[in-house]
């Protein structure tokens, strides 16, 4: 899922300061699962803003909305009938959702209520960890299902660097060396021959290095 963290309320209050009526828009997708931008978080944020603003002597009117997904046009369009009745939209979806709203509703300012994080997994309630950087050229079949691009701090492709000590990465004592994890896993799977099959060079043109990416599926258009 795409993860995120709430922006500090002080920062959000500063963003909404010029406005007297806004929409707080949540998303039922990833941000609901990581408890940062779903229906409940919309209610809490809207209540918090109303309380803070009223206590400061200047009320704010808030419409609470939660779309199925803010990254799909059919759901975003549901906001069109009323979006221009409000001075701004505070979205607590991921950065993709917020930008999609901005693209669709060109005369309404869009404000981000969360800081979007990474593509990750829920390790336990309240703890998420990165697993994928969307490099566009997956090699997990060769690396025991552990991503060297994400799990190695340097995104190395050919084994651990000198900063790997007893399975721990030099960047942080709580970060395991991605390549140690890969080698351990390959040994456990009796697939160490995969270690030699890694491509001599990884093409990064399919990753973010090639600029903003687009997927075009001719079979679906």
């Amino acid at each position, binding site marked *: 899922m795409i993860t995120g963290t709430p922006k500090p309320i002080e920062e959000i209050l500063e963003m909404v300061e010029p406005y007297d009526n806004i929409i707080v828009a949540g998303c039922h997708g990833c941000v609901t699962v990581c408890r940062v931008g779903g229906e*409940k978080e919309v209610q809490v944020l809207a209540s*918090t803003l109303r309380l803070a603003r*009223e206590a400061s002597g200047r009320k704010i009117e808030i419409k609470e909305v939660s779309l199925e997904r803010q990254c799909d046009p059919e759901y975003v369009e549901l906001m069109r009938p009323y979006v221009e009745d409000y001075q701004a939209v505070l979205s607590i979806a991921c950065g993709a959702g917020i930008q999609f709203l901005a693209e669709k509703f060109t005369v309404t300012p869009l404000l981000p209520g969360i800081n979007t994080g990474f593509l990750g997994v829920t390790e336990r309630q309240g703890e998420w960890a990165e697993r994928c950087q969307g490099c566009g050229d997956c090699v997990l079949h060769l690396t025991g299902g552990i991503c060297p691009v994400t799990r190695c701090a340097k995104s190395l492709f050919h084994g651990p660097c000198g900063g790997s000590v007893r399975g721990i990465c030099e960047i942080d004592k709580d970060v395991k060396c991605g390549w140690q994890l890969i080698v351990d896993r390959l040994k456990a799977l009796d697939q160490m021959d995969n270690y030699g099959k890694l491509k001599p060079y990884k093409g990064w043109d399919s990753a973010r290095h090639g600029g903003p990416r687009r997927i075009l599926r001719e079979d679906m258009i």
Partner: protein
Amino acid sequence: MLPCTGRIDEALLLKAFENGADGVMVVGCLEGDCHYVNGNIRARARVERVYAILEKIDIGPDRIRMYNLSAGEGSKFAAYANEFVEQILELGPSPINVARTTTAQATSQEEAA
């Protein structure tokens, strides 16, 4: 009235303040004694989150508090309720109610003028 504090969420607690409460007292079963296993533990975590929110927006964190009691501790409930009421009386009206009173007074003065 809720059958279990586990049903409480942050939005419900904040709504009480929006509706004019000067303080919110959450009373759950004794920890370790929840019929639904951990409803009161979850409630405490949510109360703590609201505590942090109220602190950040200057409403005052002391306006919310969670107590744990068994259903047989009536006199203790009364004591806790009195204690909490005293605490809220000392704090005075919430900034929301102060702002509402000020606005109402200004409006009535404008109408009279």
